[in-house]
């Protein structure tokens, strides 16, 4: 049986090197120990994710520098297809291959913005304002256009004047929730494919 308790504490330190094969065979670890004083660790990350562009949902690996855990602001430096992913096996389409530019694009939308009717200016608004406004407009529109029955008396309970675009990288669970929420409103048109 493997000696689990001891193995957990296997560490290479100055003390352990002094009793290692290296020292016992007559070599000195001194230079190695001195050299380490000059070295510093650099931390990078690799994170697995799903490409947000289309419903094929290719697996990607995002390479990052820094680590929020160590108070260094992290930044993504490279993205490539995940070789282990059964869908794309390490490949990406030209759009997916350009994902890194999407992340660092200066024109990337990072907060809600609002353009008033007739205005040519976008103005930043808070999430609360944005969601409040969306809810209010949806309610008005639904009150005005919801159809409970057709002219010949068939119950339909539908709301045809609105549509929803959801995310293509959504998991099954998110897809289920999207479906439940939108269908409960009576909405018929929604799409999870950002193919456009």
């Amino acid at each position: 049986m493997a000696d689990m308790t001891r193995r957990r504490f296997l560490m290479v330190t100055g003390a352990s090197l002094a009793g290692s094969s290296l020292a016992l065979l007559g070599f000195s670890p001194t230079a190695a120990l001195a050299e380490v004083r000059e070295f510093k660790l650099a931390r990078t990350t690799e994170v697995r994710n799903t490409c947000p562009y289309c419903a094929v949902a290719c697996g990607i690996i995002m390479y990052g520098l820094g680590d929020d855990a160590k108070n260094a602001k992290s930044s993504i430096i490279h993205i490539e297809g995940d070789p282990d992913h059964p869908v794309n096996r390490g490949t990406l389409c030209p759009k997916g291959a350009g994902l890194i530019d999407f992340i660092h694009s200066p024109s990337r939308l990072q907060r809600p913005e609002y353009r008033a009717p007739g205005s040519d200016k976008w103005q930043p608004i808070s999430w609360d304002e944005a969601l409040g406004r969306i809810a209010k407009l949806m309610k008005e529109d639904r009150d005005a256009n919801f159809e409970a029955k057709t002219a010949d008396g068939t119950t339909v309970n539908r709301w045809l004047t609105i549509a929803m675009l959801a995310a293509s990288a959504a998991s099954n669970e998110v897809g289920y929730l999207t479906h439940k929420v939108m269908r409960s409103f009576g909405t018929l048109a929604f799409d999870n494919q950002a193919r456009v």
Partner: protein
Amino acid sequence: MQRILDPAQIESFAQRTIPRIRLPDSASLFARRAERLRKLGKNHAVGDYLRLMAAVSDAQQAALDTLPLLPSPSGQVADQVEQRMAQARTHAMPPLQASGWPRDSRWRTILNELCDAVAALPDSPDAVRAACARVRERQTAQLEEQADLLLAAGTHGVDAEAAPFIMAALQVYWVHLVASLNMDAARDLAIEHHSAATVDVSGVCPVCGTLPVVSVVRADKQYQGYRYLHCALCATEWHLVRVKCSHCLSTEGIAYQSIEGGSEAVRAESCEHCHTYRKILYQEKDMDVEPVADDLGSLALDLLMAEEGYHRGSGNPLLWQASEG
């Protein structure tokens, strides 16, 4: 590295399955390791040790090349081997499981050859020569006991002076066992075995059940981008998905730590869940990476990781620490 694929390539990708196992190439394994150790040993803080291990690796290759000339076991040992392999097949266990394997005396012949070859080198330091002589003088029972201990990843009572030689001899013996297996049977068994959930959990070599020394993200054609764990004993490589702790299998809190300004081909894949690391080599950054050699050649990274409080997942087969017990 991005390139454009033509439709035929995309089609062939779609039909491809991940090669789960890479069996060692016994014709060049130790020679390549020796060459790499020598290359890494130039201007290295423990260069002398790396050169000694290069000499051991050369001797390993020579011993492996001549091993088929030694008489193979017959009678009782051969029966035991048959029995173990049949048992392994029945229970989807590693076919050449190191722990408890009925070793025959050939491995001690190899050990003597390694010691003689290293001692005979004109530039061997006296301390090494004396150590080789001491290893040769050890009793059979003592050597067998040490071999059992090293193969079981035990740490109490390790004879750190003899251990690199003993492990080197066992490596030759096991690589030979792998090479003399009926290849198709070995591959089928290993693949079948590897797909079973139990093996994925334990993270041990699907051929001999030993812990891996490091993992390597391969860059050669058929294996490009796949990560393989490299067996410390029989040098078989088996697939493990990227960005996953090879010690506790967590997929969260994984970081890649390397020496600032040093080689980008050697990193420590650390896990915040179990506070363990195992090095990961990127062949894309250096085509010549060799698992055992590059691990031994990056001791500085181990020292830094220990200072940060991380434990090593498992040791290097050519460097053992004396135990306190």
